[in-house]
């Protein structure tokens, strides 16, 4: 894969904003269009940008490893199931919204009808959004990493070297 200096710099500038936008979509899932699945997909897009802009070997050496993403994905699913099970333990049934309008975390009472929106409402829904968000982020990133591992790509030194083969072929009669 040939990614020049311009692509690498632009990717480095854009990736934090993509991550922040994805986290915004996850956190505001109960107020605005979006939610865990969509926000997780947006964050995974940022990981894809990192993989395209930098070299796979560099990514492996520095900060990304597929095992960590698997851990993130499993943690998301376990958080999802545990939040749902807590409804069975603390309240009446599985998936009961035990945090809604309780005054605690995410427990503010919502005003009915059209309103401006309060981030700390909706009970367990933001928690489940976050769980699903990190699960989708981890899962799609694992798929991307394994698919990129199968690619045969050039190294950074080969890309940055001067292309001198074409100059020699042009001189042939």
């Amino acid at each position, binding site marked *: 894969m040939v990614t020049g200096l311009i692509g690498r710099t632009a990717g480095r500038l854009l990736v934090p904003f993509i991550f922040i936008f994805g986290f915004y979509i996850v956190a505001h899932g109960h*107020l605005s269009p979006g939610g865990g*699945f969509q926000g997780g997909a947006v964050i995974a897009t940022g990981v894809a940008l990192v993989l395209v802009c930098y070299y796979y070997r560099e990514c492996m050496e520095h900060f990304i490893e597929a095992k960590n993403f698997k851990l993130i994905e499993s943690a998301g699913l376990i958080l999802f199931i545990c939040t749902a099970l807590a409804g069975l333990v603390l309240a009446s049934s599985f998936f009961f919204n035990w945090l809604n309008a309780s005054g605690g975390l995410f427990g503010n009472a919502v005003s009915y*009808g*059209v309103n401006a*929106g309060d981030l700390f409402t909706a009970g367990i829904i933001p928690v489940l959004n976050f769980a699903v968000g990190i699960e989708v982020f981890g899962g*799609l990133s694992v798929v991307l990493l*394994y*698919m990129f591992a*199968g690619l045969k790509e050039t190294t950074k030194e080969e890309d940055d070297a001067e292309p001198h083969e074409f100059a020699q072929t042009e001189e042939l009669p």
Partner: protein
Amino acid sequence: MIANLPFIAVALLIGIAFAMILLKRNMIKMIMGLGILEGAVNLFLVSLGYREDGIAPIFTGAPADAAMVMPTVQALTLTNIVIGVATTALMLVFVMLIYKKYGTVNANEMRRLKE
């Protein structure tokens, strides 16, 4: 006639998708046909739940007294999209492994499965 355009588009898309799945022998094109079929089903679900002059079913900053479109089909569409992505990734990985083993993605040339 023109008011039913989404449903007619759904029928035509399903026809195109079945044609791709049945007539193509390239496995990647068959998977693309499955993707088109998924898109047709999503379009069908969303257009089933549409109400005239409806807005998105979100109360944050919505105009007062506006009819909202149906939310259940949109939730089902969300489910369908995520599962479609997962299964498409799995099928593409299968095709990659098949190409690595047999050297072809043509479904007719893989004689090993027949003999």
